[in-house]
């Protein structure tokens, strides 16, 4: 009889074995659910870029609107310092809008503002107030300049501000106190001597204004323009080798060139930016008096001293004050 029991028992045992094996296999599979080997991912070479950089900016080579004869300001005439001070927001102190972040023009070094704009402005304070210390410096961005004058936050603005017909609508301008223009900043060993000889494989960085791109295109239509919202980023891009040159106002380029001995400014200026001191609309007495004071700094060598101190070395050229024009 024993042999008859065997088949059934074997079947049960086999069934049991199969179940346990399946369960064990299930457990093992659960424990070993590791991913299959993955391909190494493709990663681009990381190039740090400033936010808002534009490799295909729009160029508008429109000629500047000079219909209003923008460089002609008010004749000094016989306005006195007292008349000039009449409209000051604070009679004991003139407040002046400046930059504190534009190297060589208006820059805060420690606790002191220094630069070409600051030297010119200080001479104006001396003339208007009779005391160069009766001044309140108000640092501001370039976008704030016109509004600050309109709001009465400042009495005048000396901050690399170009005289244009459009701005004449909102502010009064002094005569031109400095003539800047776009030039080229390159590395010394690049062999680039001017914008015209740059090739289509080279790129040139400038600020995000369509006119500066247009000015570049007017000289060299082949070279690739690159714009950044803050032109300071151009210097970093040049140092990192992302661009081959920078084409912005020579005053700004000078401030960059002094920071890096391997860079130099080359070529001629290929655009014209005429810097003026701005006043609130209607504040013509102050404008007239400042125009007189500007004649003074041109005549007594103060202008020349300031230029030689800040800009002559980095720009590599001598310069003299421009002749000015009056509208009356």
């Amino acid at each position, binding site marked *: 009889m024993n042999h008859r029991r065997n088949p059934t028992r074997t079947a*049960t045992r086999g069934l049991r074995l199969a179940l346990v094996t399946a369960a064990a296999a299930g457990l093992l599979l659960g424990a070993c659910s590791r*991913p299959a080997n993955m391909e*190494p991912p493709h990663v681009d070479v990381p190039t*740090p*870029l400033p*936010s808002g950089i534009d490799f295909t900016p729009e160029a508008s080579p429109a000629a500047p609107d000079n219909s209003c004869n923008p460089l002609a300001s008010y004749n000094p005439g016989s306005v006195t310092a007292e008349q000039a001070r009449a409209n000051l927001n604070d009679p004991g102190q003139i407040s002046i809008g400046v930059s504190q972040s534009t190297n060589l023009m208006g820059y805060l*070094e420690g606790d002191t503002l220094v630069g070409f704009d600051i030297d010119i402005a200080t001479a104006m304070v001396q003339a208007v107030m009779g005391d160069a210390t009766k001044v309140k410096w*108000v640092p501001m961005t370039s976008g704030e300049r016109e509004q600050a004058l309109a709001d009465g936050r400042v009495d005048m603005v000396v901050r690399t501000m170009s005289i244009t017909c459009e701005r004449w609508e909102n502010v009064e301008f002094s005569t031109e106190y400095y003539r800047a223009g776009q030039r080229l900043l390159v590395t010394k060993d690049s062999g680039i001597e001017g914008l015209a000889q740059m090739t289509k494989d080279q790129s040139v960085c400038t600020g995000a204004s369509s006119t500066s791109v247009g000015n570049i295109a007017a000289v060299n239509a082949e070279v690739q323009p690159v714009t950044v919202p803050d032109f300071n980023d151009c210097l*970093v891009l040049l140092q990192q080798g992302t661009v081959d040159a920078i084409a912005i106002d020579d005053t700004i380029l000078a401030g960059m060139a002094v920071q890096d001995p391997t860079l130099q400014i080359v070529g001629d200026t290929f655009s014209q930016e005429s810097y003026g001191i701005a006043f609130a609309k209607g504040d013509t007495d102050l404008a007239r008096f400042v125009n007189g004071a500007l004649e003074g700094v041109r005549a007594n060598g103060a202008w020349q001293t300031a230029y030689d101190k800040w800009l002559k070395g980095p720009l590599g050229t001598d310069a003299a004050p421009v002749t000015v024009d009056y509208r009356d």
Partner: protein
Amino acid sequence: MSVQSPPAQAQAPAPVAAPVSGPRRFDRTLASLRYTPGQLRGLLAVLAALILGAGVTGMTAILAKSAVIEETTSQSGRLSVAALQLYQALSQADATAASSYLTAGTPSDDVNLTYREALRDATVALATAAGEVKTAADTALVAELNTQLPVYTGLVETAKTFNRLGEPVGATYQEQASTLMRDEMLPRANDLQDNALGQLSESREDAEAFPWAAAVLVVLALAALVWTQMWLSRKTNRTFNLGLVGATVLLVGFAGWLATASLASANHTDRSHEDGARPLALLAQAEMTAQQARAEESLILIARAEDQQALERYDENIEELTGSGGLLEQLEDAFAGDADQTDLIHDAQDAADTWSTGHDEAVKLAREGEFQAAVTLVTGSDEQSMTASFDALNDALTAATRTSADGFVEATGDAQRSLYGAAAGLAILALAALISAAVGIQMRVAEYYA
């Protein structure tokens, strides 16, 4: 019984040596089922299959739950923790690099040490994450972060060097470093963390799921056991078969343990999520937002208050932190009913308000030509400085994080404890039930051959 063999032979007219034994054995088994002992053995096979099935699936479910909970609690080697640490360390590195730029060369330059510590934490977290990633997308994120981190530190060091030389371009390098961090690195760290949290919440749902397969098998096994006993008592006129009764009791115990352990652990896991993981994520988010606001604040001063976008980004971060419906408010809601934690969040709110007021004052100073006073207000070490209120905010959030983390560990510990011994216990119960049923049936079968 002699009928067993001939049909099998008839069905296999051309006998081949090996394959015959299988069908023949099966036919014999079928035939044996016509008689009580065979039927008893058949029943035993069914019972054994059901009890074993219930035992194995129950045990597997409990083991899987334990593994998932283990995965949520173990403090090292996990992607979500590494990703969170990475995100935090990167935010902190950026905040400290920026304020270190302002304080360079002054006695309060210990932020530079914090910067290097944050970088170490970020590197370690990145290495840990690299070992833990399981998807191609995560691998790519880790690889990209790995290529960007040295670029970031390079920019920061270049900024430092130019800063020491007094060259303004240092500020631009520092801004570019922060742009890289803000626009490229932090979003990737955030993605990595989101992916990891997504994977974790999937596993959490698994851990909370009721083991239905095991439950169904247990019910079937119990039904089969009860039916067998009724059938046997009819056949043998004996009310009880001790072995089968024992198996039934053991199986009822099995079912009770399985249900209790599963429900209790699901409850604790759920609690660990609601009271632990969710507030922890909010707290981490608040800390990182504060770090980013701090970085923007420094950038504003580095740009001599002439960076409008940094001003706007600072406002956005503070709004996200303290605005209505912001992170601190959400935390207040999450901690409703917990007085200690609510107090800490109130401390954080006060510190954030003080910071915000001081920040406005600092920006005003910077824009009115008192730049050094603004820098001192923002980065100085006295009580009125923004450093003090930022640290107070951070301390409050860190303290709340510690308590929440303890609650999380406790809840997951409870979840794990409710599973303690369950896997082994269920296995023993199922095995005992199986043996008991086998003994009970085998005793009846033996009676036929006695």
